[in-house]
């Protein structure tokens, strides 16, 4: 390990004191950061943890003066390598950028210029800092890409960003950030847009690399588990202030500030287990199957939904071959397959791509089944087919024993009443032109249920169910936070008293605390209304909190399925083990939480996915499931 020779270890490399950052907005100045103090010593990794809007990125960006035009440091000081750089001329900051302070930005998709070859963009970082020029710079760029763990770097350097997968782009950005060998690397959520296994590989690589080079890292993340795993020192930010900072392990095991405690309590990767169930849910999931089948019609009657046909009890395992029906299942999927044609470079050369390959599973009434997988696994395509938004190439989806893939007209409309979706992106799921009232009322209107008065009563009731005040009705989606929008989406989904709710990454876009809140809400609603959930997610930690059964999908196929406990405690497949091992912070011992201890099998290089047709453009899956930010 090479420690920095320029500054002695007891002098901080970066010292931020009483930092205040203000943004000029149309509604007057907004203070985004207030009185922030933090320091980074040479060679160490410091993580700033916080939710969106906490000011963590703003703080980091102010160091190399990369704030947006309307933002400025309005108080305090930033010292770098012993020199106050708060108000030095831009020329001096320019000399620091790249060569002293490197940046690995957040979103790999938007941070590379699509017009230039990747190699050229790395070369630029070299020549701008006087590291190398011409042919030497070309060679060095390839070396740097290799160093960042990109296979076949020489060829890749000659490609454009759109030919790269997300993971590869992030590696290129790391190569760029480290190109001029900075003393401090600012890594702003460097992997939050990537799949867990890719995230783990990239962070491991970054760790090794920065350690070898003796680079100090300022890691910005929303993920407490990830921060604890990667950094020696944690800084927790909340509403523009630093509420707590200290050594990583100590801070996690002995949090002092109530916000830190709350954050640790909610972080799914740190404390996951099946959510504390309400009385109803406990009944549903713990009662023997025989009793449950008789309970179902009662509950259905109570909620006003049509009574489900009575079923006999049997103790058979829930694996069924094609043609058999599981009498307990509200939804049964048999050999579901979906192929998409991939447009080749010329139109007559299109090849079929199997997005979903003979998937079979059953959802039992009143329980939650989770499908977990990384981008490109086909999990969202399954959801689209169960919702009959997409027709399968072959296979069947049985709803209460009847094949819905053939439904049309009236039958289809009645299916739409009983199976409802909740989507991932809270900003896209609500029509911005519709008030909250019209949004929740829309399904009632579409199905001609009730009159204006009864519909309003229903909307009030639904808002109450999702714990939002009735005054919310007159508001519009653009006034709401992500979590509130997602709750409105839940209320809309529940308006028709459905039996099954399909949650497609329903909480992935939310901050941890809000995520925990929405998960809890979904859980309470399940016990209250006897809902069955199909939960599509990339996040295993969330699965553990909500699911009874879990399916693991990879490349269109189900690689493993079983009860959630089985999958988490005795995974059979390498892929599942890899996924589990990649949960950030899963292995950190905490009081009151179980750890996940899985011996990870040797990793598969993520770049195999590189040329995958799922990448980037949504060429295949029209309902792109990539990019859970």
């Amino acid at each position, binding site marked *: 390990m090479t420690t920095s020779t320029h500054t002695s*270890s*007891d002098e901080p490399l970066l010292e931020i004191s009483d930092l205040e950052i203000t943004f000029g907005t149309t509604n007057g100045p907004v203070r985004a950061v207030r009185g922030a103090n933090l320091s980074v*010593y*040479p060679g*160490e990794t410091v993580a700033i943890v916080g939710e969106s809007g906490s000011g963590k990125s703003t703080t980091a960006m102010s160091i190399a003066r990369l704030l947006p035009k309307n933002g400025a440091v309005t108080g305090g000081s930033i010292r770098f390598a012993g020199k106050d750089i708060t108000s030095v001329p831009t020329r001096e900051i320019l000399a620091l950028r790249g060569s002293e302070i490197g940046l690995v930005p957040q979103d790999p998709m938007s941070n590379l210029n699509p017009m230039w070859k990747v190699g050229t963009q790395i070369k630029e970082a070299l020549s701008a800092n006087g590291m190398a020029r011409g042919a030497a710079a070309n060679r060095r760029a390839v070396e740097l890409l290799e160093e960042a763990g990109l296979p076949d770097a020489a060829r890749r350097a000659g490609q454009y960003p759109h030919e790269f997968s997300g993971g590869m782009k992030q590696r290129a950005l790391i190569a760029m950030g480290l190109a001029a060998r900075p003393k401090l690397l600012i890594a702003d959520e460097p992997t939050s847009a990537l799949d867990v296994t890719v995230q783990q590989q990239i962070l*491991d690589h970054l*760790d*090794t690399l920065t*350690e070898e080079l003796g680079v100090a890292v300022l890691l910005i993340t929303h993920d407490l588990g990830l921060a604890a795993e*990667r*950094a*020696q*020192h944690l800084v927790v930010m*909340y509403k523009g*202030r*630093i*509420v*707590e*900072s*200290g*050594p*990583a392990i*100590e*801070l996690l095991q002995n949090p*002092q*500030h109530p*916000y830190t405690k*709350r954050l640790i309590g909610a972080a799914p990767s740190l404390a996951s287990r099946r959510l504390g169930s309400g009385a109803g849910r406990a009944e549903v999931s713990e009662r023997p199957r025989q009793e449950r089948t008789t309970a179902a019609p009662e509950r259905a009657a109570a909620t006003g939904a049509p009574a489900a046909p009575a079923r006999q009890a049997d103790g058979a395992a829930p694996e069924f071959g094609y043609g058999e029906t599981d009498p307990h299942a509200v939804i049964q999927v048999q050999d579901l397959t979906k192929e998409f044609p991939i447009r080749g470079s010329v139109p007559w050369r299109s090849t079929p791509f199997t997005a979903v390959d003979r998937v079979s599973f059953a959802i039992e009434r009143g329980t939650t089944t989770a499908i977990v997988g990384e981008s490109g696994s086909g999990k969202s395509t399954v959801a689209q087919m169960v919702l009959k*938004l997409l027709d399968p190439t072959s296979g069947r989806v049985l709803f209460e024993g009847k094949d819905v893939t053939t439904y049309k007209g009236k039958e289809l409309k009645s299916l*739409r009443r009983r*199976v*409802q*979706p909740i*989507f991932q*992106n809270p900003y*896209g799921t*609500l*029509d*911005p*032109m519709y*008030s909250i009232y019209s949004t929740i009322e*829309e*399904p009632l209107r*579409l*199905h001609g249920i009730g009159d204006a008065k009864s519909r309003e009563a229903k909307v009030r009731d639904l808002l109450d169910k999702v714990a939002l*005040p009735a*005054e919310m009705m*007159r*508001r*519009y989606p653009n*006034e709401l936070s992500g*979590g*509130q929008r997602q709750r409105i989406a839940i209320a*809309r989904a529940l308006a*028709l008293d459905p039996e099954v709710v399909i949650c497609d990454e329903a909480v992935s876009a939310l901050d941890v*605390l*809000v995520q925990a809140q929405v998960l809890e809400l979904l859980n309470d609603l399940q016990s209250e209304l006897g809902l069955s959930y199909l939960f599509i997610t990339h996040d295993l930690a969330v699965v553990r909190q909500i699911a009874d059964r879990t399916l693991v999908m990879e490349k269109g196929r189900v690689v493993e399925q079983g009860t959630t406990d089985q999958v988490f405690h005795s995974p059979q497949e390498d892929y599942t083990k890899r996924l589990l091992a990649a949960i950030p912070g899963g292995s950190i011992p905490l009081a009151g939480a179980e750890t996940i201890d899985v011996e*990870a099998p040797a*990793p598969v290089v993520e770049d195999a996915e590189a040329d995958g047709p799922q990448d980037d453009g949504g060429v295949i899956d*029209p309902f792109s499931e990539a990019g859970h930010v």
Partner: protein
Amino acid sequence: MRSEPRHSRTLRPSAEHVVAPLDETPLGAVDAVDTTSAPRSMWAEAGRSLIRNPVFVISAVLILIILVIAAFPSLFTSQDPNYGDITASNQPPSGEHPFGTTRQGYDVLARVLYGTRTSVMVGFFTMILATLIGGILGALAGYVGGIFDAVLSRITDIFFAIPLILGAIVIANRADSMNVPMVILVLGVFGWTNVARIMRGSVISVKNQDFVTASTALGANPVINLVKHVVPNAIAPVIVTATVNLGVYIVAEATLSFLGVGLPSASVSWGGDISDAQPALRTQPMMLFYPSMALAITVLSFIMLGDAVRDALDPKARKR
């Protein structure tokens, strides 16, 4: 393989655990509902930002004045624009003729005021016609997609390939007599393509959003989706384009009149008057100035209005 966490390494001289005083950082409820502001729809929001924009206020006032003149030109002059007193030709400005008279003895002010009606009518109705044609074709092409889109897009390309003025010249040349509806038709038929392209692009980006899929899953049919969700969300850029187009059509009408293939010389129009004023440019430059000025102010007002509306409707500007 996961590398060993770097917890063991101590690079910090003192690893102090600092906690901010609680009273400085009070803890709020998670995801609290903001009840302080009044509820506002997107359009209301856009309207608010419009009213605060001086560009909008200026252009709106100008357009209001222009509309009043177009509707009631007789309020502003007692002269008849079609009465040419050859004995009173080329008079300088006077009480009776504030802008003077033309060579044929027409009152210039009256010509300018009555010309407003022609220009505004042509501009407005051409805009309506072109927006209807372009909006409907563009929305259908974008929403239905596939072969249908390919065919409609090629049809759009065909009309796009014939430049507005050229197409209008060819038709206008063959028409027995031009009148205002005819000019509107001619300009409308060749002026809708940019609306169609913008509408198509806008619809494609909206139709893939989750709220449209959600509506389908709730049981809405494609027609309901198009009319109730897709079009209302896709219309903003079309409104902006239509506003700017209105100015473009007014200039096009004036150009046709100038070329002598627009409205007949007997009718009152700015383009025709500017054309008539050219020979006397040396001696009476103001004859050219007044109708040109009126035309420029009108077009400018609509372009500025379009700019202001674009700023107000820009989702990027309003984000957060």
